[in-house]
């Protein structure tokens, strides 16, 4: 057996300061968080501690004291199952080199049945797994026996997990492991965040270990070069639009000058379009140009990743699908198409390049329209100052709690008081009240607090010894099936007739096509042959064009951090002479000629009448989500004060209110409309937030175990138990309004989707600022993109559902009689 130092020496490596700091802290029994932009040293920094500890424990008189592999000591959590394989390889390397009698295995939804069976009896020394799979193991009645020797938990890419419900699921699982081993150490690996202490607290939990937890800064990157492609002809450059393909030439030039390039786009549809444009422009790149996104078949993706690893691909067009994972050494350039909407994201993407020794990270920023020049300038400056966004952890989600109660109930049972205390050791549920816990318990035991409302229902019941355990066997089976499900919309497999799998596509897109229709997918033009059950059969089309599918993954809104900087740059507070601002100067000049450029303490309101109606544009620069909430609020308040129909459109910079006739609002009227007073009540009264809550409920219903996954081959018996989440929502709303899951849906809509608190903050700020009202003759550089948005996006409206149906019918009739 070798020591870790000996292994390092044999590789010709020297350990870094931050690595030794982590090892030392770990060996002292401390938990902690290591943060840095992506880089290979991180894994070893966090892995070294357990390796050193393991090596000294395995030595007995200089001899290895066992014949079989050591029992499980470490759980390594990863957010993506696709990364697990590579992770296991890098963890195994030092183990084998050091000669430790340790096994490393992966356990995810993809793991083979035969291996799962073996793991059911005994877990490997190191288990690389996902939060769901760990929960699944906790649901075995002998979970305690299987996991009691775990000494450490390591959470990889913790910044990705921590702001999601899966992060909360991880916290709950860690709390359980901690209950079984007081000395459990929890470590996390994270990218740089604006709220690192909070990220560490979420990891370590609400425990004494918190006081002593470490926060270590990893190796800071070599230089990062961020350059924006400036359009040659600004006059032809669009003010609105999302594709950015006018700058195709700049990208091609850059790819030619590099060895291996990743071209990041913000949506899958964009990736498909860019891939086709690049292949049409450069047919000589055939074989070295590839496409990679989440809906493409895994095998194809893996081949692309191999090609990146061995440098045979010169260019890969991708989405966030290549954000995480092993570094590809040959990649020396990254292109970011369209605004990254956040400084952290730009840095993270830049960090995917320049890993060969002596290289720097290079990113070429490609704006899709004029104002993205400003966003890139703001991001570049923010990156220089290392100002990065925070990721908010999810606070006390009740659906995850409900799922966890059933998991523990099924996995050995629990005594409520003790489980309550254990759950409160997590960061997410540190403030959980006994009332909320009891509600969740009632939900799984008798359906809800309302007496008699759920006759003959029971998932868990109290056994003779006071523990809560499953009341019948099918509860166990259904729960285990449910934990394993993935969180996406129904997706259909796309295959050729010979069975070859191309990828998956959302049901909502396919159902609008009829056989014979063409669409572009996985870089090819395909013709739909038939749709049966969950498979769409296609054949290659000879035609050269087709519809590009739209995926539901919403567009990311501009982060608050970036929005503030964009606002400041436009306001010209500290005139910037960067290339981006110089390029956009003529457009900003136009804005000040036709309208006004607001200063940072001014809110611009433009009014304008066109043949489409009367428009009022308000520019708070809060980011799209908060503007959607503001839009719903304004629509509600306007229609309450006047009889008119209001159409709302939003983008990251502002809100458009369009009415048949001008609203004729004075400054006081606007102040009243945008007052933070009664904000919450008015938002709740809007028809829209009710509909949004109903849609939001889908995820909650799934997590809380209301929706049956309906596995193929599960037999007809399951079909009787399938109902949509909307049905559940309606029936709970009507008959069990105290149901906290409905409450959660409404709260999530207000907080996550409409960003009520952010909105309140901005409305309060607007109260203190000057309103600049101006009537313009035509749409301006600021208002035009917002107007263009209305032609493609969904927007809020104050219509009731039946009014909306009436209107649509009317339009259908007009169209029919035309």
């Amino acid at each position, binding site marked *: 057996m070798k020591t870790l130092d000996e292994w390092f020496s044999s590789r010709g490596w020297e350990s870094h300061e931050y690595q030794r700091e982590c090892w030392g802290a770990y060996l002292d029994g401390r938990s902690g968080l290591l943060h840095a932009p992506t880089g290979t040293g991180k894994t070893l920094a966090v892995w070294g501690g357990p390796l050193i500890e393991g090596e000294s424990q395995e030595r007995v008189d200089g001899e290895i004291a066992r014949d079989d592999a050591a029992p499980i000591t470490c759980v390594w959590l990863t957010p993506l199952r696709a990364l697990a394989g590579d992770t296991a390889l890098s963890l195994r390397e030092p183990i084998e080199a050091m000669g430790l009698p340790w096994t490393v295995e992966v356990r995810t939804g993809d793991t083979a049945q035969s291996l799962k069976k073996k793991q059911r009896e005994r877990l490997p020394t190191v288990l690389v797994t996902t939060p769901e799979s760990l929960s699944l193991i906790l649901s075995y009645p002998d979970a305690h026996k299987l996991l009691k020797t775990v000494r450490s938990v390591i959470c990889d890419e913790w910044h990705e997990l921590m702001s999601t419900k899966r992060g909360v699921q991880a916290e709950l699982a860690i709390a359980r492991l901690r209950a079984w081993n007081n000395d459990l150490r929890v470590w996390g690996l994270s990218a740089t965040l604006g709220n690192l202490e909070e990220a560490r607290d979420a990891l370590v939990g609400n425990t004494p270990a918190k006081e002593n937890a470490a926060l270590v800064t990893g190796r800071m990157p070599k230089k990062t070069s961020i350059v924006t492609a400036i359009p040659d002809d600004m006059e032809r450059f669009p003010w609105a639009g999302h594709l950015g393909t006018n700058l195709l030439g700049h990208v091609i030039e850059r790819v030619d000058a590099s060895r291996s390039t990743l071209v990041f786009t913000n949506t899958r549809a964009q990736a498909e379009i860019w891939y086709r444009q690049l292949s049409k422009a450069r047919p000589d790149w055939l074989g070295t140009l590839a496409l990679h996104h989440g809906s493409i078949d895994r095998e194809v993706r893996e081949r692309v990743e191999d090609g990146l690893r061995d440098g045979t691909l010169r260019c890969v067009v991708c989405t966030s699908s290549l954000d995480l994972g092993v570094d590809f050494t040959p990649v020396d350039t990254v292109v970011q198409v369209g605004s990254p909407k956040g400084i952290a994201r730009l840095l993270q993407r830049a960090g995917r390049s320049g890993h060969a020794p002596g290289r720097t990270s290079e990113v070429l920023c490609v704006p899709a329209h004029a104002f993205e020049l400003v966003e890139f300038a703001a991001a570049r400056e923010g990156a220089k100052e290392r100002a990065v966004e925070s990721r908010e952890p999810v606070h006390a989600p009740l659906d995850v709690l409900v799922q966890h109660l059933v998991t523990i109930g099924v996995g050995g049972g629990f005594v409520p008081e003790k489980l309550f205390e254990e759950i409160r050791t997590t960061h997410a549920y540190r403030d959980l009240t006994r009332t909320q816990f009891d509600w969740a318990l009632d939900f799984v035991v008798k*359906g809800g607090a309302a007496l008699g409302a759920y006759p003959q229902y029971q998932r868990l019941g109290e056994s003779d010894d006071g523990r809560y355990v499953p009341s019948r066997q099918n509860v166990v089976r259904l729960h285990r099936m449910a934990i394993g499900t993935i969180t996406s919309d129904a997706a259909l497999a796309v295959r050729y007739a010979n069975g070859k799998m191309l990828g998956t596509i959302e049901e909502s897109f396919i159902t609008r096509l009829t056989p014979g229709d063409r669409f572009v997918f996985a870089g090819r033009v395909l013709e739909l042959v038939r749709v049966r059950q969950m498979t769409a059969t296609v054949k290659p089309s000879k035609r050269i064009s087709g519809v590009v599918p739209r995926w539901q993954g919403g567009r990311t809104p501009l982060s608050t951090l970036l929005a503030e900087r964009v606002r400041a740059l436009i306001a010209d507070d500290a005139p910037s002479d960067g290339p981006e601002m110089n390029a956009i100067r003529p457009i900003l000049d136009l804005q000040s000629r036709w309208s006004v450029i607001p200063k940072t303490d001014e809110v611009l309101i433009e009014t304008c009448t066109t043949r489409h109606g009367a428009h009022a544009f308000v520019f708070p620069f809060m980011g799209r989500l908060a503007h959607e909430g503001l839009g719903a609020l304004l629509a509600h308040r306007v229609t309450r004060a006047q009889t008119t129909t209001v159409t709302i459109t939003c983008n990251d910079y502002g809100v458009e209110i369009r009415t048949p006739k001008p609203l004729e609002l004075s400054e006081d009227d606007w102040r009243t409309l945008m007052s933070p007073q009664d904000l919450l009540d008015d938002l709740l009264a809007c028809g829209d937030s009710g509909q949004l809550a109903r849609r939001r409920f889908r995820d909650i219903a799934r997590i809380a175990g209301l929706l049956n996954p309906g596995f193929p081959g599960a037999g007809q018996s399951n079909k009787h138990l399938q109902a949509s989440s909307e049905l559940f929502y309606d029936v709970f709303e009507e008959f069990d309004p105290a149901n906290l899951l409905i409450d959660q849906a409404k709260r999530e809509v207000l907080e996550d989707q409409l960003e009520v608190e952010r909105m309140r903050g901005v409305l309060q700020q607007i109260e203190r600022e000057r309103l600049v009202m101006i009537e313009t003759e035509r749409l301006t550089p600021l208002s035009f993109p917002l107007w263009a948005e209305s032609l493609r996006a969904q927007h809020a409206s104050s219509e009731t559902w039946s009014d909306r149906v*009436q*209107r649509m*019918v009317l339009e259908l009739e007009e169209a029919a009689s035309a």
Partner: protein
Amino acid sequence: MTATEHSTITHAGEALLLTHDATAYWARERTLFVADTHIGKTAAFRAGGVPVPEQTTTKDLVRLTEALVRTGAERLVVLGDLLHAKASRSGPVLDAFSRFRDDHQSLDILLVRGNHDRSAGDPPDDWRIECVDPGTSLGPFTLLHEPADMPSDAYDNALAGHLHPAVRLLDPATRSSVRAACFWKRSDCLILPSFGSFTGTHVVRPRRGDEVRVCADGALTAIPT
């Protein structure tokens, strides 16, 4: 065309009054038609370990009573799927329906057996429900649960359920769509929307010439095809 609470449609030479609450009334024979009540569906879910409140049963029976009283119907025909599953034959469900039966002592009730009825079993005898197989005639109508896969020449006078039909209306203004339950009169068959509250819908594609009435929030609206 404005939204109304009810609308008359002609089928097999007879006038039928359709309401937004998923019922069809044949005034000449004082018969009320509904389809897919799925009584006891929530009970089946609870038995399966999924918490759904029970009150939908009461609510649906109240709605049925309302429709019967308003029309003065002397006969109720259920076009299939009266009960949802075997597990629906539980205490509270049976009690609720018995009370409903008591409230309408002299009402004739006819059930056309549907796929769910086949697994749930025929209703209890003391409910006094006459059960017939699909294909039975009633006056000029042929009673079905499942409509034929393709409109065929076999029927032109059928009444059916089973599909829980809905149409998807596209909203060009917002580029979104709305799903609404509907009555669908094809060349062969009038298909009723599902009556039960806790039932889902299935989007159908009417052809030119079909008649469609959308049930939306207390109103019934015809849409062009």
